[in-house]
């Protein structure tokens, strides 16, 4: 009787310590998972607070609408329009390269290629995605930019060695795998019944793809494009190494332009005091970048979810 009770007590107390231990571990796990949330808020607030400091010193309206950016001088002006324009134009050039190549590659891989070809080609494209951006930057500055200058000379145009075209093209190459890989996943998960139905009606393969598969996959493809745009906007090394520093409000893609990320880097590697407007302007630009990429990301998540719900896919 006594022995039985003892063992029961021992069992219960062991249970209790296990219980406590389990709770401790569980709370540690919860604490770990809040770190990712803290990081996002950390980024948001660290940028926001410094940006507010900046807007105390300089006008917010002029930042959004002004066309003159002159940080280093006395009576400095911070009108970010030429910087936004440069970022926008380089992004457009990049998308001109990446969109057609990325989507058509995805179409070929998911619709035409045999599985053995696909399994060989996909890793190759992934290499393109794994190359560090600083390497692309060197490639843009040393190989592509002089090539463009030479070609332009040949046809009688004048191009800058820091032309927006060079960084745009190389950025486009960098984004190809972003778009092709997600588009490939999306196109592959369009139900086969749609294809078979269309082919049975006598449409050719190309017509099936154009009028059935791609429209069905369009939310996913739009999401891929938005991700590509957000990647292009935030890309730093290529433009730091190959694009210009001078805020230049122009539509001539052979001239030098600057981007948000270039100005952020430029403002923060200098020797100015940390709370000077020139340094703080980096955080104002960072805030703009954060807001725009966040919105693009939210929209792209929305499109992906729409696609998943429509075709009941879970693998994306």
């Amino acid at each position: 009787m006594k022995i039985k009770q003892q063992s029961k007590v021992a069992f219960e107390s062991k249970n209790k310590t296990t219980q406590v231990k389990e709770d401790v571990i569980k709370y540690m796990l919860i604490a770990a998972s809040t770190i990712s949330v803290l990081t996002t808020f950390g980024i948001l607030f660290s940028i926001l607070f410094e940006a507010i400091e900046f807007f105390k010193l300089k006008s917010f309206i002029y930042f959004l609408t002004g066309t003159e950016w002159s940080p280093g001088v006395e009576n400095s002006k911070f009108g970010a329009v030429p910087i936004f324009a440069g970022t926008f134009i380089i992004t457009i050039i990049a998308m001109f390269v990446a969109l057609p190549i990325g989507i058509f590659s995805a179409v070929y891989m998911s619709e035409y290629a045999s599985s053995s070809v696909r399994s060989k080609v996909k890793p190759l494209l992934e290499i393109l995605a794994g190359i560090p951006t600083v390497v692309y930057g060197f490639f843009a500055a040393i190989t592509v930019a002089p090539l463009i200058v030479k070609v332009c000379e040949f046809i009688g145009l004048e191009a800058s060695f820091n032309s927006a075209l060079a960084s745009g093209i190389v950025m486009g190459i960098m984004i190809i795998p972003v778009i092709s890989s997600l588009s490939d996943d999306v196109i592959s998960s369009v139900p086969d019944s749609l294809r078979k139905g269309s082919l049975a009606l006598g449409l050719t393969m190309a017509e099936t793809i154009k009028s059935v598969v791609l429209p069905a996959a369009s939310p996913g493809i739009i999401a891929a494009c938005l991700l590509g745009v957000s990647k292009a906007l935030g890309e730093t090394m290529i433009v730091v190494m190959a694009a210009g520093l001078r805020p230049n409000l122009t539509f001539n893609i052979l001239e030098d332009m600057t981007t948000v990320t270039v100005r952020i880097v430029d403002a923060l590697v200098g020797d100015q005091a940390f709370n000077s407007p020139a340094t703080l302007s980096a955080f104002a630009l960072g805030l703009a970048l954060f807001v725009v990429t966040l919105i693009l990301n939210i929209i792209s998540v929305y499109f992906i979810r729409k696609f998943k719900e429509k075709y009941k896919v879970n693998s994306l």
Partner: protein
Amino acid sequence: MKNKNNPFYDPSLKKRHASAKRFKFFAISSLVIAISFLVFFISDMLQKGLPALQQSYIQVEISYNQKSIDSPRSAIDRSLRRVVSRAEIRQIPRKIENNPQLMNTTKFEWILADDQVDQYVKGNYYKLKNKDKKKIDELKKQGRVELKFNSIFFTNGDSKIPEFAGIKSALIGSILTLLVTIMVSFPIGVMTAIYLEEFAQDNKFTQMIEVNINNLAAIPSILFGLLGLAIFINLFGLPRSSALVGGLTLALMTLPIIIVTARAALRSVPDSIRQAGYGLGLTKIQVVRDHVLPLAFPGIMTGTIIGLAQAMGETAPLIIVGMIAFIPDSPTSITEAATVMPAQIFTWAGMPERAYIEKTAMGILTLLTVLISLNTIAVYLRKKFETKW
């Protein structure tokens, strides 16, 4: 004639087939374009970088005596002073100090050539006086100029003298930084994945974390640099340009990758394993710790290595936290100023001397080799330990 009787005859069929062919051609050619970009890029890097594997050496007579300690330049014949590396001349007094027997001797030795001479020997663009050029041609005829394997590149740190610059300090800096990254991001990432996959109920808190992780993965890397600058350096007062700050910043960036892959690995462990554990009276933690986690571990490792490879190539946030300093000596602790391989590539790419172009390309080849081997290890691990349930 035949077509007239065919009820399915479509006069536009030919056109449609042609357009189908065109479409397929477009698709295949864009893929070919994408891949030829890759080929062009890699061959361009090889062509620019491989010459840096070799470095010109010149055989000269060095006289070790008191005079050459006081003024190292006088140790070498006047006509040769400008064609050998300044770094080698500077080292002469130290050589005597390390090896006193050398005192008052004269020796024929192979020493590094100047970077312009090196470029001339390799047939690139060079800037040399005619006098020096003639001297080199003369030495060449005597067999006193030679291209040797450039071991300096792998054993030296950065230097303002191009022929003397190497990647070692950056490599050590990269390793230290990645050590910090993995020590922080691996436990936190895996713990988060375990919580989300095994414990969390589907409530607002969990959803918020999930949305957050998605967002974190899409935030431009440069903004992580701003976070590192504002929080780690300005708020916590950690040393600027140190591997500690760089590693912490990169850890936050790799976190989403590790969480996503670790969750996928945990999800792929079948529920029957968990049920069997519970059936034997194990607690939840015991089931996860002793059964689910070991089974998911290869998948988690693969994800971690891929995340690390990405962190290794990252430059922008590290520039913001100041890791582009000039670091000639390898850092020995994580609080010392350090630089990393991509940042070193960036610094070299901005140097005016032409000799740095091949150094940069060689640095890129080294970095790519490391990255490709990391990814190969990841693929190998995945293949080797993959369990089909």
